[in-house]
């Protein structure tokens, strides 16, 4: 084996990805060659440095933000799927009516029997402890059929058991805030999400919190309800402007289909730029694009103003 061949194999020798024959040839050459030995040592040092760097951990705040945004998207998608499934079920109920009625009647009987059995015979699942309500009322929800065909005498489905609880406390209470933050992201009812944002907002002004801000950002970008999105955006606009909020405003401005929400975003952006938030080249290009393509006169006018005043 000559020098060049040996040097080309160094990384793969260190990866332990050489076959036994090549490995032997390589090691034989290294034993008798000072030049290649020192080259091998330098690669070992390099790999050790890289290995050290690869152990660095991810910033938990960045991970949380990424997860919150993704969760917002997934929840919005789930809602869309549930809605389209409901429509499909409604339409299909007009077809196959006789068979469907018989099957669903029987299935309902089995479901009722099974749920009764589960509610009265299984221990209640441990839930969030708030210490405010000890009632053991359990609700069954989100029943999803895996096998809804009763013809073989068996059906299979999944469901969730939910225990009711109650909480009363100060809006600044951390536990209470955590539950409301969860509700903003996960509650199906848009009214509940709106109420939660309003309560969070009351606390947020006094004491801004990164997790809540990230939640508001995720909701402003991805919630499927325009009313909830605009409330989240209004809450964000009340906070001291920073890079994250600016990026959210630009994202909403470029992607939201509701003109009202885009107006809220561009107003927020105008205020942010007045308070000294830096607009980079990419932001200015986005605004220039808005001047060209947005259908709303006010948004085009505001975009022009921001660029002019910047």
């Amino acid at each position, binding site marked *: 084996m000559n020098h060049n061949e040996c040097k*080309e194999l160094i990384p793969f020798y260190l990866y332990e990805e050489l076959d036994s024959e090549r490995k032997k040839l390589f090691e034989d050459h290294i034993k008798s060659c000072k030049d290649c030995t020192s080259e091998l040592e330098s*690669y070992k040092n390099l790999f050790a*440095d890289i290995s050290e*760097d690869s152990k660095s951990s991810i910033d938990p705040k*960045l991970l949380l933000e990424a997860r919150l945004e993704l969760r917002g998207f*997934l929840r919005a*998608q789930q809602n869309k799927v549930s809605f389209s499934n409901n429509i499909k079920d409604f339409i299909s109920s007009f077809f196959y009516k006789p068979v469907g009625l018989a099957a669903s009647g029987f299935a309902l009987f089995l479901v009722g029997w099974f749920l009764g059995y589960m509610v009265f015979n299984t221990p209640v699942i441990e839930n969030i402890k708030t210490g405010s309500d000890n009632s053991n009322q359990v609700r069954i929800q989100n029943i999803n059929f*895996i096998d809804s065909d009763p013809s073989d005498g068996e059906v299979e489905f999944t469901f969730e058991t939910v225990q009711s609880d109650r909480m009363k406390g100060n809006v600044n209470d951390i536990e209470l805030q955590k539950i409301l933050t969860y509700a903003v992201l996960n509650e199906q009812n848009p009214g509940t999400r709106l109420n939660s944002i309003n309560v969070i907002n009351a606390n947020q002004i006094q004491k801004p919190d990164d997790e809540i801000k990230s939640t508001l950002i995720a909701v402003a970008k991805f919630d499927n309800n325009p009313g909830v999105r605009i409330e989240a955006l209004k809450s964000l606009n009340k906070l001291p402007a920073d890079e994250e909020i600016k990026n959210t405003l630009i994202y909403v401005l470029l992607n939201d289909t509701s003109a009202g929400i885009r107006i809220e975003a561009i107003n927020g952006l105008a205020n942010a730029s007045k308070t000294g938030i830096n607009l980079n080249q990419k932001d200015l290009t986005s605004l220039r694009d808005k001047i060209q393509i947005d259908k709303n006169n006010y948004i085009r006018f505001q975009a022009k103003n921001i660029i002019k005043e910047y």
Partner: protein
Amino acid sequence: MALSDNELIINANNGDVIALEELIYRYDKMVLRLALKYTGDSDDAKDIYQEVFIRVYKSLASFQFKSEFSTWLFRITSNVCISFKRKYGKQNHFSLNDEDNSGYISAIPEDEVLSPDNLVVNAEHGEKINEALNTLSPNQKMSFLLKHYEGYKIREIAEMMNCKEGTIKKYLFEAVRKLKIQLEKNYES
């Protein structure tokens, strides 16, 4: 006992959102870390993270169980990373012509290369490695990150990047050579 990836996929495909989230949270740190190392920018890394998992969500139903979920996930991640850079044109540190040759290496004068003894480990190394990574082409960088930061075998990387093993070896060889020279240069300056 924790469910396997395949069990979680089956549950997720049956509409179980909790299973989907559990599956995502098993690997999302690795995806985010890879994206961050690849782009060097936290906003870009978050965009890649979103795009990767949105693609996973949309195509999970078509997952064939022929490979490991992680292999499939990193195939998506490498596609998104490479096309992300191409899409936004931010990758301006490397020459498109140096993908498969050592032109960059030969352009560096001999006297700029330090002796092996001068390779020093210090606290600034992470930053210097990031700078050096910016000199790699997207394919070289992705192969390098999958090898050195995620610890995959060349065969697995080839499967993830949909290339032959020989091609990955070429990418890795060039990546390591460039990084070595770039780091030596950085230390000198």
